[in-house]
């Protein structure tokens, strides 16, 4: 039982980090994209 529990915990905690890590990365990329688009729009206006 302990080996199975350890496996459940290690996999679970790792997936929590991976999921939120991927989410953080996606959000960061989205932010970068919109910052870039805003800059382009400002340049066009000027």
């Amino acid at each position, binding site marked *: *039982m302990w080996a199975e529990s350890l496996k459940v915990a290690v996999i679970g905690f790792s997936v929590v980090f991976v999921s939120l890590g*991927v989410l953080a990365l996606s959000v960061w990329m989205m932010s970068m994209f919109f910052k870039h688009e805003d800059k382009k729009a400002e340049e066009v206006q000027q």
Partner: protein
Amino acid sequence: MSAFDVFQMILLKTGFFHLTFGHVFMWGVGLFFMMLAIKKDFEPLLLVPIGFSIFLVNMPLAPLTGKGELIYIFYHYGLEWEVIPCLIFLGIGALTDFGPMIANPKTILLGASAQLGVYIAFFGALLFGFNIKEAASIGIIGGADGPTTIYLTQMLAPQILGATAVAAYSYMSMVPLIQPPIMRLLTTESERKIRMKKLRKVSKTEKIIYPLLATAVICLITPAVAPLMGLLMAGNLFRECGVVERLLKTSQNELLNIVTIFLGLSVGSTMSAEKFLRPQPIFIFILGLVAFAFSTVGGILLAKLMNLFLKEKINPLIGSAGVSAVPMSARVSQKVGQEADKHNYLLMHAMGPNVAGVIGTAVAAGMFLTQLK
């Protein structure tokens, strides 16, 4: 039949004749929860209906929790069918501003590390003799997220639902008491004084895209948690898109209030004397506290670790907000931060890990479901 026989028959059918010490003890438990809510203002929206329901279902002979009876129906269709936790998430999504998290995405990781307590309590529960499914349901209390705790426990170990749900909501309401000593213990005065750069303004387009992005990322990685995450993000899309005002108001107010009533009454009804007065619930309460404390530790320690590599330091106090008691743990970060520097405003910075914690707990629950169901 003599008048005495009639009187005796009526007496036998009253609750007085069937009253036990256990019932009276549970009345005390119910009254304690109501007292916490009314006198101390601890999660009153939940503790009042939960407390009253505990009081009510411990009235002997009352036709409430048997098959087909009133509170059984609430419980069966609301909790056993998993409707209520998901609808609560819809309301939470409609009330939550993910802007601070989008503005500083690295704080999302703090929401992951604050799930440490979930796994510590999971092992603790195994040591106390609980089986692996019960241990997972107890561990998730450390995420400080009531609906997720109910969702997971109902699927894995419905026999301990009452104790885990009440422990989760009780500890959520006690965030201002549990977290500050741990936060002070793990941080230095100079760390508590760290000021963070003002968050950038997040555009409306980013806020509209975010719920779609988060739904895709989380549901693709952990499909088991799609009902919770889906409705959380649906509620958030209602909020941010700006064109469904009526749906938004209903999700934030009427619907959330209605399901909260059914949730409170259903959860309280699981705490009858016969089920509750055993050593198990006491262990669950102890383990819940352990889970909560270690989740706070996990968030703070990762924030300190990140500071070793970051140019712009983050105040480690916001790490403790990674437990998902929204917005109470973010407020606690603000309060403890202002004890060290009264002009330091951490609230918005702490909201990032705080809302990330909701997602982190949902993913942790999803992984338990994936592996154990």
